[in-house]
């Protein structure tokens, strides 16, 4: 293994009321992919922010390429070769790939920007990393995966020696992840140190050399991925033995609660399927295959161009989410911060957001009843919050997700659409969400689950429908499940089960 490039020495960071990091010492080497794992709130983000200079440690030092610092300053960190790629991208959508890569460092010819040179350089960089990317295309035209790759190329072009990747695969599909890993391995071979943060343990074992575990702000251990098992990692993360357990649903009943007949919007084409009571119907496919769009069509958020939706055997007119909710639908969207919650409002206000009409029978909202309903749901879902009046922004990802779920349980939704239900959620909370899904199906509620996580899709669904480029690609029954088969359908290579 290469020499140590980065070393945290006894780092402690105290925020008012919280000890986010407690005497953490940790080193990273040249040419290694080093995973940083821990549940939400374990201190990963704080450590990263200290490295990028966003936070100043309360005590302890950081050693970068042999030089010791008390704290780093953002623009100097970049100069030293520390780059970070976040979940939210920092690209300008209307600029081209090359313009983004050279953003702020444009190469000029006279007084004008030398586009030709920048395009050529970008092509060269991509070529070195074996990436196919048109430097002249606008970034907004690219999919999420490629936007991320642009970020990486940008970091490399800035001579990044230490690259932080924060949940890089969260928005990607399996195939795109493969492409990303190829790039990661390439970078590693050129001697870049990669700090890899992910909730998906399987990829840590696939792409990382070592893994360090944090828990409650404390450093637990570092191990070579070859010498530690997934189960041990999880045990270290949660501090107790805990396996991932796909409990599945309670099983489908006979009656059909929802049926989509040849529905089309501007994003999807002729999608037909049904959903039985108590069933968990998995919706698989690559990102952009039209799964979220199908959910939006069902939920009345996108306009139907043709086709019909039946609920409980009757034609349903779903012109707006408001209509859909009246028919008993609920949507737990893929991006809970942007679509699921009003972050500036309290836990209570978010949970009751959909039932205010019921709560405000007279002029004013019946806050007593509101509190009753909310505290019951808070207990049922074990939402961890100091009080119902806590602002949702301050909750962890898993608890925020539970608040979204609580909102739909409050409205008594019979059909719940989960779009990536466990994205960005730690292991413990994930498990709880699975148990909740089972409990809901037991109560006779039905679930449509969109998931890009293969084990989750296979483990939780009673039946899986796969989509490809806005169209139906196939349907798999439980005895036909396999990762390969789903991928095959998702990539449009075969059309099994498509007989009508």
């Amino acid at each position: 293994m290469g020499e140590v490039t980065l070393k945290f020495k006894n780092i402690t960071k105290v925020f008012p009321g919280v000890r986010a990091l407690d005497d953490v010492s940790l080193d990273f080497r040249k040419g290694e992919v080093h995973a940083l794992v821990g549940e939400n709130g374990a201190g990963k983000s704080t450590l990263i922010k200290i490295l990028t200079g966003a936070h100043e440690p309360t005590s302890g030092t950081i050693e970068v390429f042999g030089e010791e610092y008390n704290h780093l300053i953002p623009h100097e960190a970049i100069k030293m070769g520390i780059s970070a790629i976040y979940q939210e991208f920092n690209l300008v959508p209307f600029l081209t790939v090359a313009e983004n890569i050279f953003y702020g460092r444009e190469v000029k010819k006279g007084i004008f920007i030398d586009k030709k040179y920048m395009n050529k350089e970008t092509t060269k960089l991509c070529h070195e990393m074996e990436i196919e990317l048109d430097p002249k295309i606008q970034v907004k035209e690219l999919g999420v995966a490629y936007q991320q790759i642009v970020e990486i190329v940008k970091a490399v072009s800035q001579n990044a020696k230490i690259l932080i990747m924060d949940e890089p695969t969260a928005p990607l599909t399996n195939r795109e992840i493969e492409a990303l890993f190829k790039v990661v391995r390439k970078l590693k071979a050129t001697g870049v140190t990669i700090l890899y943060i992910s909730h998906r343990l399987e990829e840590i074992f696939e792409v990382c050399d070592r893994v360090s575990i944090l828990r409650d702000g404390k450093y637990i251990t570092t191990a070579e991925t070859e010498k530690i098992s997934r189960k041990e990692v999880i045990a270290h993360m949660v501090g107790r033995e805990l396996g991932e357990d796909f409990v599945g649903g309670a099983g489908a009943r006979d009656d059909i609660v929802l049926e989509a007949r040849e529905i089309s919007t501007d994003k999807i084409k002729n999608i037909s399927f049904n959903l039985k009571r108590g069933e968990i119907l998995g919706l698989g496919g690559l990102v952009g295959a039209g799964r979220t769009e199908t959910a939006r069509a069902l939920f009345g958020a996108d306009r139907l161009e043709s086709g019909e939706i039946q609920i409980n055997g009757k034609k349903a007119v779903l012109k707006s989410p408001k209509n859909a909710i009246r028919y008993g639908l609920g949507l737990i969207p893929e991006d809970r911060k942007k679509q699921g919650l009003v972050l500036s409002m309290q836990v209570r206000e978010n949970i009751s957001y959909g039932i205010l009409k019921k709560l405000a029978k007279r002029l004013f909202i019946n806050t007593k009843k509101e509190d009753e309903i909310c505290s019951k749901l808070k207990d049922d879902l074990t939402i961890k919050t100091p009080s119902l009046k806590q602002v949702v922004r301050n909750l962890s990802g898993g608890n925020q997700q539970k608040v979204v779920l609580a909102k739909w349980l409050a409205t008594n939704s019979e059909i719940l659409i989960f779009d990536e239900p466990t994205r960005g959620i730690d292991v413990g909370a994930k498990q709880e969400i699975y148990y909740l899904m089972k409990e809901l199906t037991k109560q006779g509620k039905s679930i449509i689950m969109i998931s890009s996580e293969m084990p989750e899709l296979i483990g939780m669904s009673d039946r899986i429908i796969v989509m490809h480029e806005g169209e139906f690609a196939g349907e798999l029954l439980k005895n036909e499940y396999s990762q390969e088969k789903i991928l095959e359908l998702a990539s449009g290579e075969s059309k099994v089960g498509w007989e009508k």
Partner: protein
Amino acid sequence: MKRQAAIMDFFAKYGIVVVLIALVVFFSIISPQFLKMNNIFNILRGMTMVLLTGGIDLTAGSVIGVGSVLTAALILAGMPTVPAVIVVLLISAGIGMINGFFINAMNIPPLITTLGLMTSLRGVAYLITGGLPIFGFKSGITALGKGYFLGIPLPVVLMAGVFLVGILFLEKTRYGRYIYGVGGNEEASILSGINVKQVRYIVYSISGMLCGLAGIVLLARINSGQPNAGTGYEMDIITAVVLGGVSISGGEGRLPLVVIGVLIMGVLTNGMILMNIQEYVQWVVKGLVLVAAVGFDRFTETRKAQLA
């Protein structure tokens, strides 16, 4: 000892507020400008709500003008006072609906919609009067401006009433909740089944109606319908609301706190007048205060984003 510490704590937190209140009381007693301030108080609720939804209403000043001259014209034409007032309130609410229509149905940003209508409505105010003030009518409306209720001037009673209703509406009713929700996250609100467009119509109508009300109060006080009445008020109001901690990006801010914003504006305006500072200099200061207040809002917003 403990109590002393508590008192110290209170002053550390609210000291500035106490000082402000003292200053305002002092200045108001010796300055006639205070009456203008309590008129601004009336429109405040509307503007606060608009800003909470993430919008803005620049028509405020012009609607005051229209409200003022329209009431005068109706009364002069022989309409009894009470119906005239009701008609004007409805029309002002209607103006708010028009704002809402452009914003909702045509998807024009509130800033542009209300900027355009601000100019148009000022034109309307001048057209109604033919460019001249309307005066010389006998009406009970002056009682509204100069009357007393239990020894308290009527405009102040009105102000307190509107304020109370505003707080109850915003904090206790479901529409109040929606206003915060729509400003905090429009998309999540739509996906939660909230009729966002309806919320916007309501908010702009309330804003319009309260501006109309302010126009009527103004007319009652000076007993003359001035087409240029309320010019520049939107500036004062927006500044006061932002100073009171309402975020310009919507979703955050509480009405009681907005009062502090008005107090700061009051102190500033009255103070400058008492100090005999030239009016033009006052404009310079007021403009800078708005920019500074918004700057501070953006700063805290960025900090929050970093913490999240």
